[in-house]
């Protein structure tokens, strides 16, 4: 299952080589042309069946949240920085993989026996270290070096329609584009896989400058909110309730005509959809829609619980809804 590969492959923001190689290898026989730009984005092109077709950009980001090793202590412990936004509270005690050789490590913190209720305080990233089982700097330096990246060490699992793993934000979007690129549509299609989304929508900003898109559809993994709540507050999007359509987030408002067309297309084809909570988060759509003279943009996502943590869940039926809706639009947009 390609989702297993996509979820497990190493690719934190700024170090997308492995995931990029995998995607290129997977799509190269299905597209008319393919290039990698100066930022490291993949831009694939597939001509439409219709001669007077519109140009649609389909984008997802390859990078995932991770860490960078910033120094090695005398005792062999590794100091690190987060790459992308990660809740400090979810990293303690988690397994990580470091660098090209995938050296195993664990993010360590004092065991409870050695604490005086330190656990009441949330530690800063500055006070945390990654332990690779070395006891001195010299030894640690054999395995890792300053500037190496690390990601969560998580195996992909599947049970019925439910998948569990890391990096569903945004490898689910990558999987969808890979699948969509296998067919030809009425409209011209640019399939783009961006770098460095998690550190500030950087890849898409450069990529879209050279893509003459009439429309853009961004495919994402977004946070599901169907977990216990202490008061009557928003609990959507929910896993299993369909593809998530963004009305607005902190980077973007949807193009109204495109939004209306999308919703009617979903209804027509009985594709399950739901909305994202307005004004939450941001995606590559933020950079794309205000590129050059402006691009009519919409963002779809698969709702996923606990994104930006070592483990997320998602429902394959929502993924299917996202792929189906996108395919329908690729033939429909005029």
């Amino acid at each position, binding site marked *: 299952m390609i989702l297993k590969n996509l979820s497990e492959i190493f690719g934190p923001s700024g170090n997308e080589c492995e995931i990029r190689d995998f995607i290129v290898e997977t799509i190269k026989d299905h597209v008319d042309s393919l290039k990698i730009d100066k930022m490291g984005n993949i831009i694939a092109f597939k001509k439409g069946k219709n001669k007077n077709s519109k140009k649609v950009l389909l984008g997802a980001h390859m990078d995932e949240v991770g860490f960078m090793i910033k120094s090695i202590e005398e005792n062999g412990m590794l100091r690190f920085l987060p790459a992308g936004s990660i809740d400090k509270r979810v990293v303690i005690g988690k397994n990580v993989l470091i660098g090209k050789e995938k050296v195993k490590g664990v993010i360590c913190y004092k065991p409870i026996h050695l604490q005086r209720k330190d656990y009441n305080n949330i530690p800063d990233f500055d006070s945390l270290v990654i332990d690779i089982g070395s006891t001195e700097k010299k030894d640690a330096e054999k395995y890792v070096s300053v500037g190496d990246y690390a990601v969560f060490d998580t195996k992909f699992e599947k049970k019925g329609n439910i998948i569990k793993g890391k990096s569903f934000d945004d490898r689910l979007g990558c999987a969808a584009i890979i699948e969509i690129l296998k067919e030809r549509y009425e409209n011209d299609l640019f399939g783009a896989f961006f770098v460095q989304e998690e550190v500030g929508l950087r890849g898409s900003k450069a990529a879209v400058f050279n893509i003459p898109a009439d429309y853009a559809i961004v495919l994402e993994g977004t946070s599901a909110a169907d977990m216990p709540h202490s008061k*009557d507050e928003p609990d959507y999007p929910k896993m299993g309730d369909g593809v998530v359509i963004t009305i607005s987030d902190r980077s973007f408002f949807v*193009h109204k005509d495109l939004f209306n067309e999308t919703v009617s297309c979903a209804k027509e084809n009985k594709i399950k959809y739901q909305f994202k909570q307005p004004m939450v988060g941001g995606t590559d759509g933020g950079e794309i829609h205000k590129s050059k003279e402006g691009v009519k943009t919409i963002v779809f996502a698969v709702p996923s619980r606990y994104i930006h943590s070592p483990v997320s869940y998602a429902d394959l039926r929502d993924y299917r809804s996202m792929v189906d809706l996108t395919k329908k639009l690729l033939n429909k947009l005029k």
Partner: protein
Amino acid sequence: MKNLVKDLTSIIGPSSYEEPVVDYIEKSLKGKKNLEIKKDALGNLIVRKKGNGKKIMVAAHMDEIGFIVKHIDKNGFIRFAVVGGLFPHNIIENHVVFVNGVEGVIGYENKNFNWQNIPKTDEMFIDIGAKDKKDAEKKVNIGLLGAMKPTFVDLGKRISTKSLDDRIGCAILLQLALDDFQTDNDIYYVFTTQEEVGLRGAKTSAFSVSPDFAIAVDVTGTGDTPETHIMEVKLGEGPAIKVLDSGMVVRKPVIDFMVDVAKKNRIPYQLEILKGGTTDGMMIQTNKEGVLTGVVSVPTRYIHSQAEMCDMDDVENSVKLIKEILKMDLSKRGF
């Protein structure tokens, strides 16, 4: 012109929902055959008065701060997210209007209230008088936008209402577009969108217009109320020519040019140094290779509240100043 401002400020047009403002402007410009009008993907309204001279972009934003529906609870109360700089202390127990005309009032969770702490906006809700969720859902839905209720107060020379930021700029641009003054310059009046959420409309419109010179028209704060920040700008002392704000430094040749025009035409003016905030000017100035950009600001008190106040003399003088600038041969200044 007061009526024009009253009309424009009574429109509900939060960021991304500027269409009602567009409609009003288009209706006002109907029959002006010398103007070309187009819209772009972000909804900017670009009104061109064609000429053979330099390309000048004059920009004012149509959008206002507001809010968006996030959740309707079982009792029919509405939770919302803010759109732009809608500040908690300005909105408690204010009346609000949704873009579909439904009205309401902003309430807040008060079980832990104390006078020292202003509740945050996620501790507030909008009460539309619904008896439960079902009843509320007949009137509003997730994603519906709204803004503060217009309350135009006529104080003579001075007026006070919501969204002078930046309908006052729209009024100035509209007044200029309606005026058949002579100029060789190629003028683009750009009514921009989504300024309050990050100068987004200005970005795409500046890219497509690609002007030789630009003027953003917006409001600025004042230093003339009791015990306020130190700031030279006062209400009624003339349009403010921007020197600096937190997003841009206006180039010296541009400031000098605007000051010269004001002096030559005996138009009162003030120099503006604003500590917080910025305008579309910032985005236009850094477009492509960079654009020589100035800002004409209308001094305004109580910005981002339901009771923003400005002086109509400053508004009229802003029109005069910009008109004189638009008549100038910019190549003589090396622009």
